[in-house]
């Protein structure tokens, strides 16, 4: 059948049955709209979980010492020796050491805090890391030990900043801070001093911490400082300056992670996968909810397909003579089958496009409403939706699929209409 003739005949039929065409398209649009909406929502929320709430680097394995000293080598402690062996595990690209400053510390802030007067004392935990671990996020200096008495460069967790901005600051009337504002900011800290813990006898070291950058890799509730600073502090306080609190192994690729985890356990060390598990659980919850909603939407599409099947069956019955005439002037059964399917394709494309557009508009509306009406909360995203380029294509494709699926049997019936039966006689 010639394409332009096909188009003409399809248009004729759709024009003649506007109500039917509209109802068929509307049904598909409903199904596709809810499908696209919920899939975009699921993907969007999944992204927020993955990238903002639990930004797990899929290539990192966090190794911590075993609590029980049963390992063959070094009794499950993270000595330099153990670190070297970890770094030698096949698939490990880098091993980043971490060591807590093992004396308590406090910060007593009394002065101007970004235009607000602030007087506050808090306990500070400092963790030293291999500088390369956070190198990419260092905005000030080279993140190395500046030596005694000099301000210590510090990386702040970007998640901590988010929590501060969304809950801590509003509750205490403190100003909102951005990463740029924070870089360069200094605050005093006294090591070997605590408001709550018992402190070892020894001198108090007073110094300054200076923010050198913000990083996802910063330890959440701690000041992340250069490893050498932690070693120096621990040596000065006469506490353990030999074993590490943790090691982050960077795999060459995410697929190597399971074998690396197995090797680490083999060595009698533990893997801290709390974040990873939380992320996976949250991700799974989102995925399950999304799947359920998508299934529901697919059901709507199925109903739409039945609706189309019903409408087309009636239309085919009403058009038997006309289809017979086409056969008489040279249409094959395949031509007739194709004609009815082509009508369905048009309905499917129409419904798919309308549904997808509706979903995208609804998503935009939800985001706008969220921005205006919902209160600020940590990790509140600008958008709850993620629309990858394949999603609209999927929407339109499924619309066509539903329409064609519904049209299949009526089209077969149309092709099987016996022209000899419908053409003879009067009427």
């Amino acid at each position, binding site marked *: 059948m010639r394409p332009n003739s096909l188009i003409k005949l399809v248009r004729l039929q759709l024009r003649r049955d506007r109500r039917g065409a509209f109802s068929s398209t509307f049904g598909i649009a409903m199904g596709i709209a809810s499908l696209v909406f919920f899939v975009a929502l699921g993907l969007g929320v999944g992204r927020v979980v993955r990238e903002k709430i639990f930004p797990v680097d899929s290539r990192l394995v966090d190794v911590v010492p075993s609590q029980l000293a049963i390992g063959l080598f070094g009794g499950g402690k993270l000595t330099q020796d153990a670190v070297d062996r970890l770094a030698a595990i096949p698939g490990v690209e880098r091993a980043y050491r971490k060591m807590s400053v093992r004396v308590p510390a406090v910060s007593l802030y009394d002065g101007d805090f970004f235009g607000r007067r602030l007087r506050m004392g808090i306990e500070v935990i400092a963790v030293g890391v291999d500088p390369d671990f956070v190198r990419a996020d260092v905005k000030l200096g080279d993140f190395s030990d500046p030596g005694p008495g000099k301000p210590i460069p510090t990386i702040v967790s970007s998640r901590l900043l988010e929590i501060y901005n969304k809950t801590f600051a509003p509750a205490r009337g403190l100003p909102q801070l951005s990463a740029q504002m924070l870089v360069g900011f200094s605050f005093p800290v006294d090591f070997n001093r605590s408001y709550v813990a018992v402190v070892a006898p020894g001198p108090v070291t007073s110094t300054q911490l200076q923010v050198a950058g913000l990083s996802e890799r910063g330890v959440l509730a701690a000041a992340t400082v250069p490893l050498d600073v932690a070693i120096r502090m621990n040596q000065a306080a006469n506490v353990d300056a030999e074993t590490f609190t943790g090691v982050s192994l960077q795999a060459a690729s995410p697929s190597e992670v399971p074998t690396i985890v197995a090797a680490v356990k083999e060595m009698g060390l533990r893997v801290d996968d709390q974040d990873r598990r939380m992320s996976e659980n949250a991700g799974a919850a989102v995925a399950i909810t999304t799947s359920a909603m998508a299934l529901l939407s697919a059901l709507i599409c199925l109903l739409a397909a039945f609706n189309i099947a019903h409408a087309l069956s009636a239309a085919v019955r009403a058009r038997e*003579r006309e289809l017979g*005439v086409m*056969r008489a*002037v040279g249409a*094959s059964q395949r*031509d007739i089958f194709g004609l009815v399917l082509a009508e369905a394709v048009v309905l499917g494309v129409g419904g798919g496009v309308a549904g997808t557009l509706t979903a995208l508009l609804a998503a935009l509306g939800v985001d706008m409403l969220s921005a205006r009406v919902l209160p600020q909360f940590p990790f509140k995203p600008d958008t709850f939706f993620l629309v990858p380029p394949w999603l609209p294509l999927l929407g339109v494709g499924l619309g066509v699929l539903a329409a064609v699926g519904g049209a299949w049997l009526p089209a077969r019936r149309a092709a099987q209409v016996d*022209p*000899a039966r419908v053409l003879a006689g009067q009427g």
Partner: protein
Amino acid sequence: MITTEALTRGYDDGARGRVRVLDGVSLQVAAGEFLAVVGRSGSGKSTLLHVLGGLDSGFTGEVTVAGTRLSGLGDRALAKFRNESVGFVFQSFHLIQGLSALENVALPAAFAANDADEARAKEALARVGLGEKTERLPSQLSGGERQRVAIARSLFNKPRVLLCDEPTGNLDLQTADEVIGLFKSLNQDGLTIIAVTHEDRLRAAASRVLMLNDGRLAPHPDPLPRGGEGDR
């Protein structure tokens, strides 16, 4: 132009078993003939036309029309045959509502391999005397005009055989006469015509009349004189 041999077409008819509507029909039609087929209702006249026109493939026997052997042809080959070699004219016109006269006439082009165009449709409409009404919808035409559009459609692909099933059955006397005149003129131009009819005047226009009875064709026992419309 048309040859059939031992053409048999039966239907399963519940209690009566298999009923042979056509029972060993042998028919020879020369090019340029104008054949009328008569017979009482239910005698199988329409069935015969459908077989000859490739609309019904459930027959046995040999059928050759315009050089195409129809026995055993598949659906697509039959469709091509209907498109190119024969034209159908039905009692109730069967125009497609919503398409203009011109578009109706050009309908065969939709299923054609060649690229026949509007000019051909205009030509066909002019041939049936409707050159001025190309844009009318079927609902805006009289019965006679509708049948002439249908005839133009059957002529569109320049077939060699025209198969007409009671073509004047839905027309009043005067328009029927016009249509019969049109058939005569087409026949004079060389078109082979087979017309199934109850109508004496159409029968009289034919060059030969056959009667279908008990599944067989026989010469009509009471032939009217040729061109005898005015004689009754």
